[in-house]
């Protein structure tokens, strides 16, 4: 398999070009600005959480590389309707997958279409690009305002 298939898959390129839910949510209760100082990527996550902890709406703004933008975009489409607790579980699995500690082919998971990012594990310098949106999401759920990837 060539690298374009591994990392820059068609779905990722598409979400980079046409990011979904790329907007702010007005009067939102939850938001966080995420920043990766290593590359300057900035992803802001906005969240509307309904009673029962259900994610009613989620969106993002910001700038960054194709991987970080596509990851944020796919994340927003994946999360709508899930609970905050489910989101945290998926964050955990996603994190393990990009680090190479979870193999979606052989291990149980709830990642669905997000497994498209598993190619990232071969590119250690890009792992943070893929996980920035997720770290920022957790920060937004916990309402801490700002997060920086170390």
């Amino acid at each position, binding site marked *: 398999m060539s*690298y374009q298939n591994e990392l820059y898959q068609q779905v990722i390129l598409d979400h*980079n070009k046409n990011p979904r839910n790329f907007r702010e949510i007005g009067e939102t209760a939850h938001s966080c600005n995420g920043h990766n100082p290593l*590359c*300057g*990527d*900035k992803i802001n996550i906005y969240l509307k959480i309904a009673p029962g902890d259900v994610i009613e709406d989620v969106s993002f703004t910001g700038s960054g590389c*194709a*991987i970080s933008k596509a990851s944020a975009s796919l994340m927003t489409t994946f999360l709508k309707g899930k609970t905050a607790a489910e989101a945290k579980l998926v964050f955990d699995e996603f994190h393990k997958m990009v680090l190479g500690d979870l193999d979606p082919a052989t291990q149980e998971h709830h990642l669905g279409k997000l497994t498209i990012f598993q190619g990232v594990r071969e590119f250690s310098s*890009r792992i943070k*690009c893929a996980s920035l949106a997720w770290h920022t999401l957790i920060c937004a759920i916990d309402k801490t305002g700002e997060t920086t990837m170390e």
Partner: protein
Amino acid sequence: MAHFDVEKIRADFPMLAALEGGKPLVYLDNAATTHKPWAVIDRIRDFDSKEYATVRRGSYRLGERATDMFEQARKKVQKFINASDHREIIFTSGATQSINLAAYSFGKKFIGAGDEIVVTQMEHHANFVPWQLLCQEKGAVLRVAPITDSGELIIEEFAKLLGPKTKLVAVTMCSNVLGTVNPVKEICKMAHDAGAKVLVDGAQSTPHMAIDVRGIDCDFYAFSGHKMYGPSGTGVLYGKYELLDVLPPYVSGGDMINAVSLEKTTFSKPPGRFEAGTPAISQVIGLGAAVDYLTGIGMDNIAAYEHELLEYGTKILSKVPGLHIIGTAPHKGAILSFTMDAAHPHDIVTIIDQEGVCARGGHHCAQPLMTRYGVPATARASLAFYNTKREIDCLAKALQKVLEVFA
């Protein structure tokens, strides 16, 4: 210029024969670090296997010989940058430590509340953060000289920042992002007229052009060994002797003292005062070998060939659709920073890496400069005299791949 036999030179560098993912390595990250010729590798191996001992503590012949070789390396560096005295050469771990040393020792002696330090918008963090911290600590003021869109220092604006309160100007000779070569001689003259001292960051200039610190008339000059085909963990701070002689030590301990009693320590003369502890002995001797190697090729020959590469690279990259070169000063070193409409710098370098091309994407430790250009990052190809036009063609081909992927 006499014919520059780059293939012969390439044979001196074993790393250049390496493969990357099965493809020939095209190494274009020379501003970050450079590869070593056999002359350096062999010298260190010989020294370590036949001549190694500690230096400056010798009570036996082996140690005396090692000390001689170590001090020979100092004299080689002195000649290489045309310093007037070998005692003006302080060995450090790299340009970063050299600048921190200068900031600490000069700052301690000469910087007080209300004093001013002038830097430029194009400084590497290594020549920015130490001065910012010093100013914060002393209540001094950091002034930042602006640059033009093409990446040149605006001399008139720089001049306006100089005044009776200016104590030091810290400026790079060559920008690690833009490639701009600054008129450091003129800057020194202007600063000296205002009564200020000048530190020149030579990390990107020393490996690529003949350096004459006396001609420049700078008070300090800092550079790294690993960017000039020598070992990592080595660096140099040059300082005018009369200045070094009045500065307090930076790191203290063994090897830098005159006499220690329970009450008081008196310090050695420069450079010993600034070289506490056991230095990177083999590596400094390897740095001496790198200087010999470069001198053998001739810095003017290197500069002329690299300029040819730069012109070729500029021409080739300008043909890539949607590519923007950042840094177009008329006087520049062989560094090509760019952005592309199609892709983010990180995606660019990941894709060209798969074609065997090593280049860097990021802010290059120059965030104030990225802010100046309103970009989060750039991709950067930085060339050395062992690079070829064929390798620049490889870069161009790899960039076509980027365009295909992000079509």
